[in-house]
């Protein structure tokens, strides 16, 4: 193990050239919060490291109806961004719970997605918001919806010569309702046991703070653009499609909340691991989705 090769890409093009040259031998290094742990633990001896931290992929752009974030943008930048705070508050909320401050300073949104952990923290808000990722290679670019990006634990549709250069996030309507929560084993610096987000556009019903009470039949007359997302409960971060479909076009009442939560839990396929049992993950999925919906209507 003499240490392999290190390349500092000064532009995206240079990075793509290196990936084209070395293919599967190359490991893309951004913040290193995943790769360097594996190196230290002797689980990985990369032949080629391609460092993309200073190649122009650190940006957040406001394009009106969407926000695009460069693949090598650290989470701390996303957290600081006024654009994200104003237009993507769900993402801002979720990013607060990623890692710890030092990890967020270097850990990048692209790295988090490409690593493809079933527990990837950024996947939950991004799937809820219907984000896509742009993959670039020497031979061109393609945009893949995030839902189609993950294939399994540690596996994505990214080809060895491709680089995740951008995350594209549609800006939801201003009156969209959402909630996010991460269950970890402690309050910080922990992989999620289950994390979830619910988002939908509500029509009818009373605005916040008025007297539409819990005992009234209906909180909102119609939900649309609904998504229920969970992570760490399936081989990939999960969009609970059936639960989302139940919400879509429906009037939201206590009965539907219970039904959506139960359905979301049924869509999970969790496993036992060091953090929690499959039993708990399924139970907690139901409780989590229920409490997210209740928080929205409260």
């Amino acid at each position, binding site marked *: 193990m003499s240490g392999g090769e*290190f390349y500092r890409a000064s532009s995206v093009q240079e990075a793509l050239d290196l990936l084209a040259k070395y293919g599967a031998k190359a490991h893309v*290094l951004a913040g290193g919060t995943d790769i*360097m742990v594996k190196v230290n633990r002797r689980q990985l001896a*990369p032949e080629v490291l391609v*460092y993309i931290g200073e190649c122009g992929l650190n940006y957040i752009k406001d394009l009106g109806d969407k926000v695009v974030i460069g693949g090598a943008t650290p989470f701390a930048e996303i957290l600081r961004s006024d654009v994200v705070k104003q237009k993507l508050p769900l993402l801002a909320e979720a990013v607060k719970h990623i890692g710890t*401050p*030092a990890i967020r*300073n270097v850990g990048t949104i692209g790295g988090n997605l490409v690593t493809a952990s079933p527990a990837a923290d950024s996947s939950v808000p991004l799937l809820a918001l219907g984000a896509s990722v742009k993959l670039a290679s020497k031979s061109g670019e393609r945009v893949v919806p995030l839902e189609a990006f993950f294939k399994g634990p540690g596996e994505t549709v990214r080809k060895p010569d491709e680089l995740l250069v951008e995350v594209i996030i549609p800006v939801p309507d201003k009156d969209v309702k959402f909630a996010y929560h991460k269950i970890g084993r402690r309050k*910080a610096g922990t992989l999620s046991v289950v994390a979830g987000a619910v988002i939908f556009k509500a029509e009818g019903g009373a605005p916040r703070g008025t007297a539409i009470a819990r005992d009234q039949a209906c909180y909102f007359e119609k939900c649309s653009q609904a998504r229920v997302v969970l992570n760490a409960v399936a081989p990939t971060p999960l969009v609970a499609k059936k639960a989302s479909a139940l919400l879509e076009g429906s009037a939201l009442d206590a009965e539907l909340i219970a039904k959506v939560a139960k359905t979301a839990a049924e869509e999970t396929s969790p496993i036992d691991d060091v953090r929690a049992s499959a039993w708990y993950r399924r139970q907690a999925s139901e409780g989590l989705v229920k409490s997210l919906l209740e928080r929205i209507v409260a």
Partner: protein
Amino acid sequence: MYTLELKVNGRAYKVEVKATTTLLQVLREKLGITGPKVGCETGDCGACSVLVNGKLVKACITNALTVHGKEVLTVEGLGRPGAFHPLQLAFHEHYAAQCGFCTPGMLMAAKALLDENPKPTRDEVKEALSGNLCRCTGYVKIVDAIMAAAGEKA
């Protein structure tokens, strides 16, 4: 081997490293700067925390070559006897250090916080320290010290 040029605590260095050498290995093994500690080597404990261009990082999982051309600040550069940083004095005054192993990293996390947010709340301090584990203190007096230093800085 690759040549790495960096500044640590204001002084310029040039060292030879491998593609996978960590910043912590450079500091401790090549430069003899032992304030940052080896606690876990997985980025979990924070005993190796330093600032790179003013930003808090875990030196144990920072690839050294990504620090090329940058400035590193360790506890040794924070303040020295006779010219301690207010945070160091506050840590001493408030008994924020017991065994002292996490202290160098803890101080750097505190500095990173106060540089960005000079008047934090207690909860903001706790959040800023959340990547720095301490098994001795229960964090109470560490938070006390940082709150006090924040007051003094104003």
